[in-house]
């Protein structure tokens, strides 16, 4: 890797960079504030890492994880964490983030853990808060840097939650010093699916702790909004994003698109819509 691009995320719009766009991005070097990739796709190192290292020479990179399982009750996967550390050493990312979710439980029948490849919800209890905070502490200590923790899109909630997700994230941030990655589409999905009050959620988050926004599209199955990252950002999510800009402020903003991935121009067009809103908000508060 040559001289890397800056090691902080600019307050501009970026895109989730996926394999179909590696070549075009490296060839054309389009104007993008920054890019985000999924950690796990690069844990193998070797040739698969080369496009990312080339991209890193031109854009700030954020590493976004989907496999840590911060709320899992199976032990923290030290091999996973070590792989992330190695990737951070090589890539020198501007940010490292994970989801507020679980993906594995102890499995006594095979004397190990049972892993489910998904981002799963859990009850927001004091016990869970203590558990997740301890694991976030462990991750941050191992990484030697602040972790961004993302709110979850969910299709079920629990009757015995003792607080909202927003309150949980706020308390988690206060206890551990972690930052919050606020995914606006996830919040909208939860508002529609579970009746979460989106504006109250936004007002609950400690603005200083929010370090990044995510925007994405969703799909609908049998009345359930599913966070598929397969479409453009909908009008309601843009409205919530504008509300968030007013209440939280300008933050680096990412467009995620993970299935039915369009041509780069469309993805970039979505990022330009976010950039326009960032600039309008910036101009309005000058």
């Amino acid at each position, binding site marked *: 890797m040559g001289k890397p691009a800056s090691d902080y995320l600019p307050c501009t719009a970026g895109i989730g960079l996926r394999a179909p766009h590696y070549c075009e991005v490296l060839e054309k070097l389009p104007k993008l504030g920054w890019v985000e990739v*999924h950690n796990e796709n690069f844990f193998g190192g070797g040739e698969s890492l080369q496009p990312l290292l080339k991209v890193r020479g031109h854009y700030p990179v954020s590493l976004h994880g989907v496999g840590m399982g911060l709320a899992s*009750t199976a032990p923290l996967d030290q091999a996973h964490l070590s792989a992330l550390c190695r990737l951070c050493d090589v890539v020198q990312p501007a940010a490292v983030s994970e989801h507020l979710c679980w993906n594995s439980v102890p499995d006594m029948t095979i004397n190990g853990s049972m892993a489910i490849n998904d981002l*799963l919800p859990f009850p927001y209890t004091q*016990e869970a808060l203590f558990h997740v905070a301890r694991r976030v502490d462990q991750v941050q200590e191992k990484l030697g840097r602040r972790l961004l923790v993302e709110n979850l899109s969910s299709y079920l909630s*629990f009757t015995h939650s003792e607080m909202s997700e927003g309150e949980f994230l706020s308390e988690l941030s206060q206890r551990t010093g972690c930052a919050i990655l606020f995914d606006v589409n996830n919040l909208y999905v939860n508002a529609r699916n579970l009746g979460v009050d989106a504006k109250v959620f936004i007002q609950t988050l400690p603005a200083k702790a929010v370090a990044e926004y995510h925007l994405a599209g969703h799909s609908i*199955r049998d*009345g*359930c909004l599913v966070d598929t990252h397969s479409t453009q950002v909908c009008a309601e999510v843009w409205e919530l994003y504008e509300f968030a800009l007013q209440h939280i402020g300008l933050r680096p903003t990412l467009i995620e698109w993970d299935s039915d991935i369009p041509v780069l121009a469309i993805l970039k067009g979505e990022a330009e819509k976010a950039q326009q809103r960032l600039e309008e908000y910036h101009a309005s508060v000058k």
Partner: protein
Amino acid sequence: MLLLNDDLSDFARAIVRGEEPSSRIDTSYQNYSVAIAIEVYRNNYCGNLYDTVITLGKALLRSVTSAGIFGVSD
């Protein structure tokens, strides 16, 4: 063991078996069934292939080692 573990284990079994969890699921707002939500989780796209491959690989390795083919057991 954490009380949380009871909820997560129940949820995990539900997803693996395609059954409704016995955990205390709040259905007061949602306008779809718990069964549909579980089906979404069973089919959901997670955003990367890596963990699927690793999970399958680990499961395969466990079954091979427990069968004693490599002369070790876990």
